[in-house]
């Protein structure tokens, strides 16, 4: 029989995690419950759905902090996220459909860190830092170093993701988001990307580009970020970005798309981030 606990507070949740690292930590279930009747029955469930200590979205101190238990519906509707962290709000609106957005959580997305997780390129471009806790204490980890391979992360067996901290971009930073799938709503991405580009007098000062579905994990396109520095926004930066990207990613053929298609689309997505609209 599967054990089930709904912790009263964070201390109890962390103690459970330390004592039963094999138990499933379950929030909205949009990942872990897929094909549930064909899955191995978990030894125990730690239920963190609507668990207050990791819920909520707060604004302050030059950043927005999103609790790991916040759903994509909450992220998409939050006025400060829509205004200041537009790529994340736009990604949230395209994560599955309404039913998935109502249940899928920020913590679940970063916990699984699938290469096609729609929010993850936005977290990379927006310089997200994760807050992680265990009975051993709290720690911070930049999301850019979080993923260690195909659906593997730095998360230790006794840890929980608590929150995502996102600095507010400065006034001279332009952000962008683009997802390409078979249809606009509720499709698994073929390629998606997000950008945060700091511009001074029409020249790129620095850029962060996050990409999904082009590698075994969500990645920062660091070669592109270097290539566009000092380039004039518009055709010049766009072409530099396109050339650098081709040399830096090697997407794969699979059931959803081909490597050649993904490469061409990723180039277009990245180049478009630098076009002047």
């Amino acid at each position: 029989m599967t054990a089930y606990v709904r912790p009263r507070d964070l201390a109890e949740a962390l103690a459970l995690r330390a004592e039963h690292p094999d138990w499933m930590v379950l929030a909205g279930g949009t990942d872990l419950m897929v094909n549930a009747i064909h899955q191995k029955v978990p030894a125990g469930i730690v239920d963190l759905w609507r668990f207050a200590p990791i819920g909520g979205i707060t604004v302050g101190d030059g950043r927005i902090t999103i609790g790991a238990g916040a759903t994509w519906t909450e992220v998409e509707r939050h006025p400060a996220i829509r205004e200041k962290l537009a790529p994340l709000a736009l990604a949230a609106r395209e994560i599955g459909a309404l039913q998935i957005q109502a249940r899928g959580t920020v913590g679940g997305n970063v916990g699984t860190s699938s290469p096609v997780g729609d929010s993850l390129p936005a977290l990379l471009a927006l310089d997200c830092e994760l807050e992680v806790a265990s009975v051993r204490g709290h720690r911070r980890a930049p999301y850019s170093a979080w993923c260690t391979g195909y659906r593997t992360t730095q998360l230790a067996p006794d840890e929980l993701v608590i929150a995502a901290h996102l600095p507010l971009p400065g006034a001279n930073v332009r952000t962008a988001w683009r997802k390409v799938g078979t249809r606009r709503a509720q499709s698994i991405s073929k390629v998606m990307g997000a950008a945060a580009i700091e511009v001074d007098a029409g020249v790129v000062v620095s850029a962060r580009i996050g990409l999904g579905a082009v590698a075994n994990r969500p990645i920062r396109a660091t070669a592109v970020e270097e290539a566009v520095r000092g380039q004039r926004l518009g055709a010049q930066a766009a072409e530099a970005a396109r050339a650098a990207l081709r040399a830096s990613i090697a997407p794969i053929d699979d059931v959803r798309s081909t490597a050649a298609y993904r490469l061409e689309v990723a180039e277009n997505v990245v180049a478009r981030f630098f076009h002047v609209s």
Partner: protein
Amino acid sequence: MKLELEVNGAAAHVEASPWKRLLDVLREDLRLTGTKEGCGEGECGACTVMLDGEAVNSCLVAVGQCHGRKVVTVEGLAAQRAGEAEVLHAVQRALVTCGGAQCGICTPGIAVCAVHVVDSGALHGADDATARAKVRELLAGNICRCTGYQLIVDAVIAAARELEGARS
């Protein structure tokens, strides 16, 4: 584990594994077979119910998470007063009059999701083109394999207009 949840406004007592899907508890334990299983993967929306007022896929909900929570299934959409015949929700009536159903497997999920969309006021004040685009986006998680979505969208818009008219 022993669970108490509110289903369609009434208390329901269930003894089930916490890992059992809400979908299976509704159909097998509570005999509410209006909710259908399509894919079991959260892609098709046939099993959509409302959980604490949000439209969710019941195939992705572990029933252990539902203790003390409110569930509304397709059986709970119509208004029922003691001693009177039940009155279908405007969305259900519109699905009938517009012909927004064929084989019926996706219909309960569409009805629940559409009631959620219409009652949340998401279409309020939108012109026709905007409302149609919104319905297509908000119902994108409900897949019909019989035919297109034209008549379903017509029905949702008609229901929204009817309720708007009744309010003003």
